[in-house]
């Protein structure tokens, strides 16, 4: 488990992270969402041990990351700004990484380069931006990290490769209980991937939610009574976050137990009663009231 407590970081008196608290459970994928300048990259650099916070702590299963080379053996980082020494091929990079990481898995590396169809002998500087991302992904995943830190990982990747990347990550999470932190400035990218979502704004954690519990609590309902509209509002006793009428059909987002809602509504004999899937952005819009400018920036 990665635990961040009261983490603060200032760049020349400008606060970048302020009293940040965050927990990433073992074997889960945590989506860190924030607009540009929210502090995502700084947080990841602190988590990778490159930067040191001015206050607070970052621990991996109770161990501090700062100058902890043994712990870093189990951390894989793919930064937004990639680095490969000039003139190096993937094969050269393989020998660098394999020398540093004791868990280096050569077979895995070859499997991944084959999966992404990357030429190990070609100079990396000839690769496109997306190919460089894939190369970094192959190298990092071959170190068999227990913790994976990804800063805007799918930026520049085509949809097919994105799927492959996510598939590999999800498999590792399932097979090896790998803990993953993924940062993005777009909520849509996190759809269907993350177990937890945290929204970072101006260096502070605006909100942090486990998606299963949010989804379990929040429901999008489509309902119509035709001409037989009941005299009393059937939703009177419920927490309705949003209500929209389209002719005789009403669309609403309701918070509460789905069993209770369903039982109550079915008793009023509606013509149409559907429970629709909620997208991630809808969850956050309704959860936060939808008025927050920060949230709208993340969604649109």
């Amino acid at each position: 488990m990665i635990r961040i407590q009261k983490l603060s970081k200032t760049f020349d008196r400008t606060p970048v992270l302020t009293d940040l608290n965050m927990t990433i459970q073992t074997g889960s994928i945590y989506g860190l969402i924030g607009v540009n300048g929210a502090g995502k990259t700084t947080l990841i650099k602190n988590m990778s041990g490159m930067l040191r916070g001015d206050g607070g702590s970052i621990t991996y299963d109770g161990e501090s990351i700062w100058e902890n080379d043994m712990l870093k053996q189990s951390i894989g980082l793919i930064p937004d700004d990639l680095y490969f020494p000039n003139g190096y091929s993937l094969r050269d990079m393989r020998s660098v990484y394999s020398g540093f990481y004791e868990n280096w898995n050569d077979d895995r590396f070859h499997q991944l380069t084959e999966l992404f169809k990357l030429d190990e002998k070609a100079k990396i500087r000839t690769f496109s931006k997306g190919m460089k991302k894939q190369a970094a992904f192959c190298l990092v995943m071959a170190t068999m990290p227990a913790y994976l830190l990804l800063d805007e990982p799918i930026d520049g990747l085509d949809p097919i490769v994105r799927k492959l990347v996510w598939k590999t990550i999800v498999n590792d999470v399932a097979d090896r209980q790998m803990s993953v932190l993924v940062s993005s400035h777009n909520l849509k990218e996190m759809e269907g991937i993350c177990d937890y979502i945290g929204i970072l704004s101006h260096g502070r954690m605006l909100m942090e939610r486990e998606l299963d519990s949010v989804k379990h609590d929040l429901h999008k309902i489509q309902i119509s009574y035709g001409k037989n509209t009941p005299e009393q509002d059937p939703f009177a006793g419920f927490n309705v976050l949003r209500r929209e009428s389209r002719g005789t059909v009403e669309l609403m987002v309701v918070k509460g137990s789905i069993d209770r809602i369903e039982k109550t509504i079915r008793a009023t004999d509606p013509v149409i009663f559907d429970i629709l899937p909620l997208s991630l952005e809808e969850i956050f819009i309704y959860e936060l009231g939808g008025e927050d400018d920060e949230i709208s920036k993340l969604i649109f």
Partner: protein
Amino acid sequence: MKSANLYSSPSKAWYKENFRRFWVLPLIEFLALFLVNILPIMLNYGRFECIYDYASTSLWGYNIANIVLLCSMAIVVSTAVFSYIHGVASATIVHSMPITRRELFRGSFFSGLVMLIIPLILTGILFLCMSGAHISADALKTICGTSEYNIITIKAICIWVFESSVIVAFVYTMANLAGILAGSRLIHVLLALFINGLPFVLLEIFYLYEDNFFFGYPEDESPFAFSFVSPVSYMASKFGRPEIAELYPHLIYIAVIIAVTLFTSWLYTRIKLERERNACVFPAVADIICVLLTFICMSLLGLLIASSVSDIDNGLIQRIPFIIVCIASSVFIYMICRMIADGTTKIFSKVNLKKFGIYVIVVAVFFAFTLFDITGYQQRVPEASKVASVTLETNYAVQPSIDLKSGKSIDSIISLQKALLSEYKNQGFGQVSSDDLTIRYQLKNGRTLSRSYSLPVYNGKHGNIKTTEAFKNIFNSAEFSRANLYNTSASAIKSIAELKFTNTYSKNKDYEESEETVIASKDYYGLLKAMNKDILTMDFNDFSTIVNNDYDYPSVDLRLNSRKSMDESSFYLNKSTKNTIKYLKATGYWEQ
């Protein structure tokens, strides 16, 4: 399936990585060393006498091409091995790898050092292969100043490798410190040059201040410190074959290298990498560098412009243009330095104004001590009761250095210094003059008080009546006359390396020729006796005539068996040296 066989250890992997990426640098260094040192010997292997001077300069460590090459390579290698710190992407990747900063520094430092020293060892081996080259017996007779036919010895090669390694390690260490302080590769290189050159520049500037504004500052003290400040200047300023004893300063340099490296390593663990795009990652260091650079540039500009707009003067007149230039240049240079340090042209803030204010205060204090001599350095004359002995070094005497101990002589010297101070406006001030006078008081409390003065021509025009009178008193004293004589004891004569008669004569107005005749050792005693007889009859006017006529006389030159230049002296012959001339003519050395 886990394939751990490729794993070494992060430290080893980092060494390996550095060697793999930068192997070309030691190759370049080796090729350059080969071109500078080995190739000339190879090309002249059979006629080594043609290359003897150059080869000895190289092997004895003061070949400037070698020194420049080693310094450049040290800075280049340092910039290369620590380049990863200055890139955002590289710093992120490298510092997230399973290796501590201490190990990273150690790996970078030692891999760079090994890459710098291996070419030196290889060049040493090639020198060894060239050890068969030597001067032929016939040529040996014609090469003046050497009795050695073979200089490429194992001992000389080992010393060369050692001294060169110390130079390269010293510059490399300072460049590494610069690399840790700098926030970009360009600033790394500039700061490496700055840190390595800083001691020389500061010493030279302090020397210039003292020389220009301190009347009586002993000129030979600063160059002495200057040569010891770094192995680079030490090697560049030395001459002759290095002896084992001369290697002792290198032990101090090695201690400095270790201390600076430990400090740099500690500093590296404290760097805030987010500041890497700034000129300097430690803001306080950036402020110090701004102040130092401003001070250096201000001083150089001030001294250059002030000396060109006003004649040398001992009073405040010289200082006024200097101070005006200093104020103007300080503002201008500080602004430029601040812009570089802050990375912006928007430097006009209260904070920067406050920093400049601190600089002004520091410079004002410095000027109070130098330009305005608030400590009274120039006027300091010891009390006769506190002086144990005094040494006089003057061109007006035959002996280069004369030690005087009697109370009367000490009083005379103190009177001379007081006379010089009272007539100081007439003395050459801040000028290079061959007519220097140095007084060294050995005080009873164990301290030494030294003063040097450049003397004007003593023909009475400048009205140096008191100084001339004081000089005459010294020359008339029995102790001075005795101390000015040549030692004619058997042991002293045995220590004479060479005694020669140099006769200079003009063929026409523009062409002068000199002829040297080596005096036979059997004539040493007689000649010295004759010279002493003349010295006892000569007064101050006789000596000043020789100086005033620019030593344009035949001379007897004496060199003792010692490497110190102080052990060389010349005795000039004119109408007041009748006994010496008579002896030389009688023994057939003076035929014309």
